[in-house]
């Protein structure tokens, strides 16, 4: 029995989003004339329950076996309609979407031309729909374990959560100690609580956890596999071992800005000039200042942040409050000291931050607006040269101690880690999340999640928040026990393939390998994300992508040239003289 496509076409008004610009009734009438279409109708909101019911009814009663919805972006509602048709037994891949909102009504004025474009988009979708094939949606089992890379506060928390939830967690830390940057911090803002008081118990819990394996002085050297089934190579000293996990949380942290890159501040040259990180170390040791009490202490904000010359245009977020904290500590330890904070803007955005900033000023810390230009030497002291922009005057402030509020920068090995895990980086150099609003802890790589300073500057509470979010997101596949893999993957025509391997070179997911026996390329359908790069790279046209085959895509294009064809136009013109005329 040969297959006959029976296409149902549904044109969505999207309220007035589409209907105010495109003549949706005319598009529906036009679509009814297209080959293979058995029903075509327009409706106010196709994504609503009644809208979806229309589709289900036609599948059951009219024998519709291919569905086209002309509405918004497939990013928004393709999953909705795929689920709709699956409910009544149609394969979800027998669905095609025409985006007549973002690609038409939202970007064009109302009128005949916009309606004609909507018709073209629909005709194209219908042409593809008639060639659509059902695809098998596959599930693969998930190894119930998570790898956490990085033993700072974010990595510790993520490993703990995964372990507490009942899964195995492997925490790999490059250095010999756990705790990361947090272990270098004396007290935290906005509570002035000693960091060790909560960090050490966290470390203890992780180390003693029955389901968390901690590997210090260890490094991830290779990552293979895919979500649910990652193979991780870890080297620890002389030893090298492979572990298998279902998910990965990347919590590799950050570096503090190297203040020597601002030579005008003389860091490393003047002993009076230190960084906020140096301050923490000195404060923890109990001697912020050597040799009596400092009379004048200056803090300089935004060192290495908000600076386009250095290529660090972003705000490092923590420095305003770090400085407020340290200024308070100076005033507490040396009540006679005059403390000046040089700033551009004070960003007290977090919970209790504004109170904290208020308290700092009430403690007698003087905020002076203007970011210093340079520090020079004068006798035993240094001189901060700046403009007090509120006075509108250049000023020189002598100081016994100057603290540079250094920002957070991506680790020097970010690129290497990105290569290992195939992670993207955002413009600031940190790892990039999958979506800034809706998928803030996921990456474009399925099964790989981000936590802490490796994704961008953040304070401890934000790092822990993100760590717990990443652990939760990572545990979704662990709890389900299986993951759905993309069905629209590439496949190789073994008759045409010469095994040249050019496809494997362009594949970002390492999904193609030369078959050891057959001498042709083989696709690992679990790794393949269906991007299609291999299909364009293949010199002999041997690779196709399911759901985007040459046949399907060419049908989409061919029908557009047919619309220009006089005959076809005549057909349209006769049916809809108002629109095209």
């Amino acid at each position: 029995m040969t297959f006959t496509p029976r296409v149902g076409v549904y044109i969505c008004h999207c309220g007035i989003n589409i209907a105010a610009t495109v003549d949706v009734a005319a598009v529906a009438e036009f679509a009814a004339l297209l080959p293979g279409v058995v029903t075509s109708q327009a409706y106010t909101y196709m994504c609503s329950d009644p809208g979806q019911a229309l589709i289900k009814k036609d599948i059951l009663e009219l024998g519709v076996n291919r569905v086209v919805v002309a509405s918004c972006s497939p990013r928004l509602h393709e999953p909705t309609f795929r689920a709709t048709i699956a409910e009544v037994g149609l394969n979800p891949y027998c669905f095609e979407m025409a985006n007549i909102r973002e690609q038409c009504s939202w970007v064009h004025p109302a009128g005949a031309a916009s309606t004609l474009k909507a018709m073209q988009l629909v005709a194209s979708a219908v042409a593809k729909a008639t060639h659509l094939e059902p695809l098998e949606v596959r599930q693969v089992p998930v190894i119930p374990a998570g790898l956490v890379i990085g033993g700072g506060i974010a990595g510790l928390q993520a490993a703990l959560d995964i372990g507490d939830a009942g899964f195995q967690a492997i925490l790999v830390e490059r250095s010999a100690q756990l705790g990361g940057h947090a272990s270098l911090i004396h007290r935290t803002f906005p509570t002035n609580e000693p960091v060790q008081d909560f960090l050490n118990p966290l470390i203890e819990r992780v180390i003693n956890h029955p389901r968390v394996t901690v590997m210090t002085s260890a490094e991830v050297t290779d990552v293979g596999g895919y979500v649910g089934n990652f193979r991780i190579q870890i080297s620890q000293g002389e030893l090298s071992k492979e572990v298998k996990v279902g998910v990965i949380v990347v919590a590799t942290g950050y570096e503090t800005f190297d203040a020597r890159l601002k030579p005008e501040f003389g860091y490393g040259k003047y002993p009076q000039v230190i960084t906020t990180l140096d301050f923490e170390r000195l404060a923890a040791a109990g001697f912020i200042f050597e040799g009596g009490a400092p009379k004048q202490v200056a803090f300089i904000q935004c060192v290495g942040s908000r600076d386009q010359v250095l290529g660090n245009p972003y705000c490092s977020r923590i420095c305003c409050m770090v400085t407020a904290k340290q200024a308070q500590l100076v005033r507490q330890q040396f009540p006679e000291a005059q403390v000046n904070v040089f700033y551009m803007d004070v960003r007290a955005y977090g919970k209790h931050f504004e109170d904290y900033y208020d308290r700092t000023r009430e403690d007698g810390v003087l905020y002076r607006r203007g970011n210093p230009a340079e520090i020079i030497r004068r006798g035993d002291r240094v001189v901060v040269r700046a403009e007090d922009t509120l006075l509108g005057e250049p000023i020189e402030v002598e100081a016994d101690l100057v603290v540079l509020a250094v920002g957070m920068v991506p680790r020097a090995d970010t690129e290497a880690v990105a290569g290992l895990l195939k992670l993207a980086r955002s413009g600031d150099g940190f790892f990039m999340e999958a979506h800034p609003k809706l998928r803030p802890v996921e990456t474009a790589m399925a099964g790989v999640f981000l936590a802490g300073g490796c994704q961008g500057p953040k304070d401890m509470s934000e790092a822990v928040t993100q760590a717990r979010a990443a652990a939760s997101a990572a545990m979704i596949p662990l709890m389900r026990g299986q993951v759905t893999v993309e069905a629209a993957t590439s496949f190789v025509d073994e008759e045409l393939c010469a095994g040249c391997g050019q496809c494997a070179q362009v594949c970002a997911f390492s999904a193609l390998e030369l078959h050891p026996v057959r001498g042709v390329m083989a696709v690992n359908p679990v790794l393949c994300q269906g991007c299609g790069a291999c299909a364009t790279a293949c010199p002999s046209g041997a690779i196709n992508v399911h759901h985007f085959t040459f046949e399907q895509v060419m049908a989409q294009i061919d029908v557009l040239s047919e619309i220009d064809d006089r005959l076809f136009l005549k057909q349209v013109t006769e049916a809809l003289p108002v629109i095209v005329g």
Partner: protein
Amino acid sequence: MLQIDSRQFVKEHGLFACIQCGKCTGGCPMAMKTQLNPRNLIYRILVAGNGFDIEGREELWDCTTCATCYSRCPKLVNPMEAVIALRSAFVEKGRVHPNVKTALESTFRQGNPLTMPREDRGLWVGDLQVKNISEGAEYLFYVGCTPSYDPRVQKVARAIVQLMQGSGVDLGVMGSDENCCGSEIRRLGEQGLFEMMVEENRETFKSLAIHHIFTVSPHCFNAFKNDYPKNGMQVQHYTQVLADKAGRGELKFSGGVDKTVTYHDPCYLGKHNGIFDDPRTVLKTIPGVKLVEMDRSREKSLCCEGGGGRMWMEGTNPGTRLAQQRVQEALDTGAEILATACPFCLLTLDEAVKHLNAQDRIQVMDIAEIAVQAL
């Protein structure tokens, strides 16, 4: 009233990027002693609406174009170029200091801002044997106006010739055919005259098929390198050529200079072009030289106040001279020689030493002058 179209000006100079942090003014060597306040000036232009009146803003002529402001700006704004552009508005109306007028006219007529006759430009050579570039040579030695005419700086030009010839550099000069580079003309705001000179000089260089050029002055070097349209010509400062020769072991000395030397970074070599190490390399190659650093060195070097046309203008506060402050800083290091590599720095610092009556304590010399003593 001298109005500029402030909206257009803001757009052309990208002033909306300014976040009013004050780094420009805080680092400006002139802001401490005159009314010049780049941050405030930008703010006033931003809020001016349609037109901004620069009438009476004499402080615009104080700027030495030392580049400290824009090298520190975190938002890549260039206050220095904004000041130069505002000067243009004065120049267009002919409202300039008589000395500036003289310098501009002299450049137009004689090819130098020093009111010296064009035909005397090649006389600095004296009894040295130097090829004319028309005979063909690998490098054009572009001498520049001040080294060509000023008796004090002519010595530097001659020293450079000896050093170059001694290290096997094949050079030629243009003699009286050489023309002003226009660097100071552009910075005085006379953009039209500057563009005319660019055209003339490019034609000349093209007809002489010049591929490599080196200069005495960092100002000429910067103009050819950054202000002229790119044409594939390699432009170097003479200290770069010598540092390269030193690196190859081709800069050889038979004698030495047993002196403690401190080096003053000229703005147009250092802050403008990031050349901090080459001059120091040459100094360290000279046997006997003990190099000590001032606190304000490299990126923090203090301007001598000779740039931006200030060689011909006193500015609004002639009482305190940056060059005098600079000589004091050099004296603090205990150095016997204050070395530099710029004709303007050489002259301003030399004068400051005289003002401070410090001739018996410190001597201002160009690096080439020190090196030639050790040949």
